[in-house]
């Protein structure tokens, strides 16, 4: 199997889907010759031309709306929002239009579109270019929400998202674009709604998303040195959410820590914690804990940004606290 970066895996997913299905097309700001702000669509314009790799004006509502309307007509648009933070100016088209059309129309419409957007902190991009907003999208019925953490998952999940008949918000963590991993050359899909156990363990369950999966794995190694065997689970999609895999793990480990980079308050960690408490309370030996960013905008200055992003030390500390 070839080693590819997360970014290359995403690019390959789009390329292969565009080769497979002429109704798949890309639109967004600077996605053409420029190749996308982070380079994710690089080379696609050269192969597929401007009819299928469409540079838009800086006009997020019109981008999301064009994707929605084209999807309602049966096409499979993949639109890029340059930074997820920009979704605010286009939110109506996503959450009131794309997400609700099927339900409002009594099941008579399908909106097979993907909205790709990088999110997350770590590159000094400050408050309006660094947020993790997955909880917003996970709160909207009608949207699917996907957050890959590895190159392998990035490709398989993006292909699955493109083939899905629903609007899928596909959140890429920008700090992960350069990470490498094994990625098959041929197209493959990963079913949305299937968590992945990234590390098996018996003593505590750590559910982590996106870049925090890697933080949790780093913490798990440190915990192992102290004789604590952590299981690390990446839900990979928040809607649908594979709560069963998490609950099965909790029944085995009797402890749950959820780690995400989004601010802790109102984050998806609360939802996962509540579902586990409702369904597996008797299996817990300690209160469920959550780690997330503090309730502040993402700061700019490097020491502040570093302090904002949860790190392995925080994960280790929380697990030790849970275990008394």
């Amino acid at each position: 199997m070839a080693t590819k970066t997360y970014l290359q895996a995403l690019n390959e997913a789009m390329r292969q889907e565009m080769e497979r299905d002429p109704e798949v097309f890309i639109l967004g700001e600077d996605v053409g010759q420029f190749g996308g702000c982070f380079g994710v669509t690089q080379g696609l314009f050269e192969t597929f031309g401007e009819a299928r790799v469409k540079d838009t004006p800086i006009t997020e509502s019109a981008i999301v709306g064009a994707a929605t309307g084209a999807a309602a007509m049966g096409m499979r648009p993949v639109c890029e929002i340059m930074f997820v933070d920009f979704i605010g100016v286009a939110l109506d088209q996503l959450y009131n239009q794309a997400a609700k059309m099927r339900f409002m129309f009594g099941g008579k419409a399908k909106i097979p579109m993907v909205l790709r957007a990088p999110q997350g902190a770590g590159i000094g991009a400050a408050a309006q270019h660094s947020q993790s907003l997955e909880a917003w999208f996970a709160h909207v019925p009608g949207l699917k929400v996907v957050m890959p953490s590895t190159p392998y998952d990035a490709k398989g999940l993006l292909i699955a998202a493109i083939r899905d008949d629903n609007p899928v918000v596909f959140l890429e963590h920008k700090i992960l674009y350069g990470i490498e991993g094994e990625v098959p050359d041929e197209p493959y899909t990963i079913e949305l709604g299937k968590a992945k156990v990234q590390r098996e363990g018996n003593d505590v369950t750590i559910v982590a998303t996106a870049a925090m999966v890697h933080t949790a794995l780093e913490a798990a190694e440190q915990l192992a040195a102290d004789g604590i065997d952590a299981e690390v689970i990446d839900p990979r999609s928040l809607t649908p959410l594979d709560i069963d895999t998490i609950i099965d793990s909790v029944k085995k480990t009797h402890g749950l820590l959820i780690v995400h980079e989004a601010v802790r308050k109102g984050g998806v960690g609360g939802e996962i914690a509540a579902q586990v408490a409702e369904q597996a309370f008797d299996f817990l030996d300690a209160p469920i804990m959550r780690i997330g960013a503090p309730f502040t905008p993402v700061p700019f200055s490097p020491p502040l940004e570093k302090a904002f992003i949860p790190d392995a030390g925080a994960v280790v500390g929380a697990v030790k606290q849970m275990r008394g």
Partner: protein
Amino acid sequence: MSITNEQMIQMFTTMNKIRQFETRVQEFFADGRIPGFVHLYIGEEAIATGACATLRKEDCITSTHRGHGHLIAKGGDLKLMMAEIFGKKTGYCKGKGGSMHIAAVELGILGANGIVGGGGPIANGAALAFQYRGQDNVAVCFFGDGAANQGTTQEAMNLASAWSLPVVFVNENNGYGISCPTSKSMAITDIADRAAAYDMPGVVVDGNDVLAVYEAVSEAVRRAREGEGPSLIECKTYRWRGHFEGDACVYRDENEVQSWVERDPIRKLEEKLQEQGILSPEKSREIRDALAKELEAAVAFAEESPLPSVDELEEDVYA
């Protein structure tokens, strides 16, 4: 602009169909028989009728919260519409949408829309699909004077123009965004002036003259079909009723309303057709009677239809 007598009689029929439907909805709402709230199209019938008369079944429209007229003009079935407004399982949206969300994708109706300015970007998307597939269909975006000031509308017009999309933006300027008169909501008199900013034709027509609307939209549709890009048609009109049923209309005076009732778009067409010997009073009565029967059948269908089962609540969220 050639238009046949049959086409004009068809437009007369459609306008009456909308008027009768809306009048009945008004009565039902007053009787407390319709859940939620409704925005009626009475007085504006010429716009939907004239615009949709230029379209094919394969063409698309995006509509507004005041959408019943657009849906009827684009071929919507009164039975399924009335059932939807009643919240019945047999309605266009299985009772999940209601008055503000009626859609019939199979008729090219991409939905009424509860969000002012919500339709423009979606109409672009439909038009983009037509353009990409090499089809000469068009998308018509109906939007009000209120929506004219939304950013989404400006974004949509700009993108449609930049990409030469086959879209016709049909503005229904009825003078008020809820209670706010256009004199307070914009510094210009004619919304069509904004077309210049997007290098597209901008035309003002009497929105109470169905033939004028037909003529202007026909030319815009021709351009769109031939790849010449979008147009903006502003139709000046007036809503006889309040913004929604129950609106006390404290923001306008009765003389103003009356002056527009005197410019009834249906009577205007009827008089013209009678003068020209195209429509006799008898024929006109026949048309209205037949429509009344169709409407009664729709009402009976809606009344007799079952409400949705609560088991259906969580259906159709995802495909």
